[in-house]
């Protein structure tokens, strides 16, 4: 690299800071905490050393350039542009309460620096930023928006107590979203995470992406990636892999139901390719139950079709998307007051196809299981 390259690099760095808002971080607290901790550990040695207090001279104020006086109009214009820019910066880092209940304590819809929001045991709340970043507050949680410098583009939230989850849109590496709590802070470039703070410590779990975890006691920042956690507390810092969640397996079988009794017609499941003779069954009032394993799905979509294109004869009131188990192909009604009351369906002879897909939702995210499909034949 020659001098031109180095100057180009220097100007590039200055532009990233001036125009791009990549403000230098403040490491004072971390360094001082680490230095204090080191002093406590090595106190005997320090006492024997000659320590000479050193005064650091204040930097002399830089002489102002005469360009300001000469170009007053340009400065005014620049000031107006700067004001617009600052408003954009402030808007980008200011969260809004977008979903809450009336008993959530909050000062206003937009949370400015210094303001906080608290949830009680009955509800949570959702904060949304202008770029689509969403922070969901659990019950009994308090967060505060800390003050920020005028050029600081970073979104910052202080978790005073409780727990939150966040889906953070990609942030610029120089202006990560910062989630701070008692024992540590997390710097998020764009990811999905959970952050919790109580008397025991501050814990970060990363569902997707990568987050920097910086213990307030000092030491190296930890890079926490998908499926990992980090925890800082009075006893120190630890990190590792999050225990895998319960499997969400979705729909695993279909069961032939007797709609007269609301009980399974037999122990065996309804197999793919099976032929059912109506005359051989104890009733012609049938239904088919879609059975799941693992977590209960948030909803199940069941479709019944005939291979000849004719209507399958499923009761019209039956909804394709069912949210309460058990999930019946021909629907479930509560008209007679009995729970799990399946509607009666008398299929005409023909070949039928049933497909069921389970959907699991968490916040705004939804995940669908692979569909379970079977084909069976009905004869007289």
């Amino acid at each position, binding site marked *: *690299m*020659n*001098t*031109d390259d*180095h*100057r*180009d*690099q*220097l*100007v*590039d*760095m*200055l*532009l*990233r*800071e*001036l*125009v*791009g*808002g*990549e403000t*230098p*971080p*403040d*490491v*004072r607290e*971390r*360094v*001082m905490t*680490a*230095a*204090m901790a*080191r*002093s406590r550990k090595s106190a005997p040695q320090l006492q024997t*050393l000659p*320590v000479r*207090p*050193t*005064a*650091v*001279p204040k*930097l002399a104020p*830089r*002489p102002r*350039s005469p*360009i300001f006086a000469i*170009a007053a109009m*340009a400065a005014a*214009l*620049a000031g107006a*542009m700067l004001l617009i*820019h600052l408003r954009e910066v402030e808007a980008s880092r200011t969260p809004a309460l977008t979903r809450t209940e009336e008993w959530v304590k909050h000062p206003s819809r937009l949370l400015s620096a210094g303001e906080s929001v608290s949830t009680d045991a009955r509800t949570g709340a959702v904060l949304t930023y202008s770029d689509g970043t969403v922070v969901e507050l659990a019950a009994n949680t308090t967060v505060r928006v800390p003050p920020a410098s005028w050029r600081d583009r970073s979104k910052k939230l202080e978790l005073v107590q409780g727990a939150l989850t966040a889906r953070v849109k990609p942030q*610029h*590496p*120089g202006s990560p979203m910062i989630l701070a709590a008692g024992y540590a802070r997390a*710097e998020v470039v764009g990811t999905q995470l959970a952050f919790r703070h109580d008397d025991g410590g501050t814990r970060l779990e990363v569902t997707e992406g990568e987050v*920097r975890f910086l213990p307030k006691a*000092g030491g*190296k*920042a930890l890079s926490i990636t998908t499926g990992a956690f980090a925890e800082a507390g009075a006893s120190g810092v630890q990190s590792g892999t999050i225990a895998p969640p319960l499997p969400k397996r979705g729909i695993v079988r279909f069961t032939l139901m007797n709609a007269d009794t609301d009980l399974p017609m037999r122990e065996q499941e309804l197999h793919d390719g099976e032929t059912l003779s109506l005359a051989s069954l104890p009733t012609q009032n049938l239904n088919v139950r879609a059975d799941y394993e693992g977590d209960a799905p948030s909803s199940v979509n069941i479709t019944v079709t005939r291979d000849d294109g004719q209507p399958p004869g499923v009761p019209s009131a039956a909804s394709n998307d069912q949210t309460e188990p058990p999930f019946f192909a021909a629907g479930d009604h509560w008209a007679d007051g009995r729970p799990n009351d399946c509607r009666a369906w008398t299929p005409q002879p023909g070949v039928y196809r049933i497909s069921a897909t389970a959907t699991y939702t968490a916040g705004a995210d939804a995940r669908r299981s692979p569909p379970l499909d079977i084909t069976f034949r009905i004869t007289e």
Partner: protein
Amino acid sequence: MTHQSLAEILDAHQTELFRYLKYLGADHAVAEDLVQDAFLRAFKAETTPDLDNLKVRRAWLRRIAHNLFMDFCRRKARSPVAFDSAAADTAEALWLNEFLPHDEGLGCMEALEECVHELPDRSREMIDAFYARRSSRDELSRQFGISPDGVKIALRRIRQVLGDCIHQRLSQA
């Protein structure tokens, strides 16, 4: 070094050291870690230079940060930052001559702010799109009707103009 001295040099020099490390090629996260390490190493040092002498103090902190960054590059076998002594000397000379004399670069920043406002509209829009809105080169290419390679060249030319402008302003100040 006392805690009070550490606090004072932190307040006075942490921004400067961060900028210096970024200038040498460290990314944001690495620069932040190394600034922290540099001050802790300074605090732990059994012998310190004359901390009352601003020039000596700055050079000492810069040398610590410089060595930490070189160690980091050596540890990272695949680091994109190649360190050779000649380039480091050139970088150091430029830093000393163009950046350091102006209050941790604050003079540079103010000069740059003025220089940006003097750019032609199209250049200023390109700077704003690239640095503030973080548009990609492809997006800039479409927006300004030039090839992606042309965007790179155009940005470099604008930075060259700004570099000359900063140099001129600071030499007049």
